[in-house]
């Protein structure tokens, strides 16, 4: 990723965590009682209602495409087309992101993808601090 070494980037979305070295990862939460995984911290488990709150874990960066759409029209100001993808990570967490570096005609359910981080399209906050985001790319090793 490309960030100013003197400026710690901000997460562009809630599931991103950033280490002291500026390196981002995805944080999930897993119920210790039933094993269900979530992208948000909740007070009790959404699945089994256990009051033992789901615990944070660091998500893996590989998964498979579950569903997608090629978006040709969106809200004003959004660059189109892009591939909107729903990806099941190998540790049970599901993420939605944009799938890049792929011919739209070649997109298939089950295709292996990797999670990569970038500077969230060059976005900056009012103080010029960069945001870090994520997207998916096809994984060539499968």
């Amino acid at each position: 990723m490309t960030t100013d070494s003197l400026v710690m980037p901000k997460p562009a979305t809630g599931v991103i965590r950033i280490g002291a070295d500026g390196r981002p990862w995805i944080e999930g939460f897993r119920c210790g009682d039933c094993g269900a995984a979530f992208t948000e911290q909740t007070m009790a488990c959404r699945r089994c209602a256990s009051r033992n709150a789901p615990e944070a874990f660091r998500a893996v960066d590989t998964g498979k495409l579950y569903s997608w759409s090629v978006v040709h029209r969106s809200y004003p100001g959004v660059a189109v087309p892009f591939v909107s993808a729903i990806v099941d990570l190998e540790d049970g967490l599901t993420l939605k992101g944009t799938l890049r570096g792929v011919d739209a005609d070649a997109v298939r359910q089950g295709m292996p993808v990797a999670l990569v981080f970038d500077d969230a399209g060059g976005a900056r906050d009012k103080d010029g601090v960069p945001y870090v985001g994520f997207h998916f790319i096809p994984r060539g090793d499968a």
Partner: protein
Amino acid sequence: MSDVYIVGADMIAFGRYPDRTYYQLGAEASLKALDDAGLSIKDIGAVYASSCFNAQSMLGQKVLKEIGQTGVPCINVSNACASGATAVREAFIGIKSGIYDAVLVVGSEKNPRGMLGGAPHDGPPPEGLFGSESMPAVFAEAGMVHAAAYGTTIEQFAKVAVKNHQHATMNPKAAYRKETPLDEVLASEMIAWPLTKLMCSANVDGAAALVLVSEKKARELGMSRAVRIRASMLTSDPYEPRNPVMFDANSVTRLAAAKAYEMAGLGPQDLDVVELHDCFATAEILHYENLGLCGEGEAGRLIDSGDTALGGRIPVNVSGGLLSKGHPIGATGVANIVEIVEHLRGEAGARQVSGAKIGLSHVLGFGAAAGVHILEKA
């Protein structure tokens, strides 16, 4: 407990009403439903008013300011696209409990223009960066799961739009009454693969209303046009592993349908006519299976067979559906029931489903909520 009957049902023609307010539209629909029932607002014990975008504005009270302020309770509900079904369900409970003998349900909406959704976020806008939150993309992705599992084709999804647009040509209250052949549906602007513009619901304004009464009141009024509510069911989304990253259009509907069939003591094989939530063409395919109209994986073949068209085994969305009758969010759930009532009464005109005795209406609210009502000619 008393059975609950619908004795008044009507709606305004869906379309665009730039010079009128949402409560004026709701008031007009309310007066039409009261006239249909042969009742006055002075006979009504409570008002249940639904809107997605204006329920917080005291919609029911605003309607009464237009048609007569009788001092009765007004219950204003908002539950996304299931708002109307939620109001009907609450009205059903009010009669069922014995508190009221006659209530008015009114759903009214002036939709925002443009593509709905796109809630504000802190930081960079998520759309395009983190996938898509637009409704066409969400329902495209739901449809692509079906396509991956069962080989459903874009032509099969598109045939839903062909059928519903054809049905709308027979409905004088539909917003769009233009036949659209398959090649025209496929050639219209691609919004979110596999959904073209003609496979997306029509963003319009509208209002619909119902009068619900107890069995005692129905007998007083005469049962000749009364329709009995055999089941009124509302659900929220049960846990699904990909939710909320991926909106689940299925489990919330399956839960509502199962509970409604149980309440009615009926099954999908008993239905003569169905109005279901075709917010997008992909959704209708999914709901064929969610409502049990066919077996798992058979929805593509069901649309191919013509069985869900008028004259077929189980006609679906004979009104034109949300795709061409239109989808004024908070009015939709009430209007779907108005359509079923007209068929059960034998008053649906050119689009009448011959001999319809039992009908089902379904709506799905993003977030999620599902409402299913099963109605029977009294």
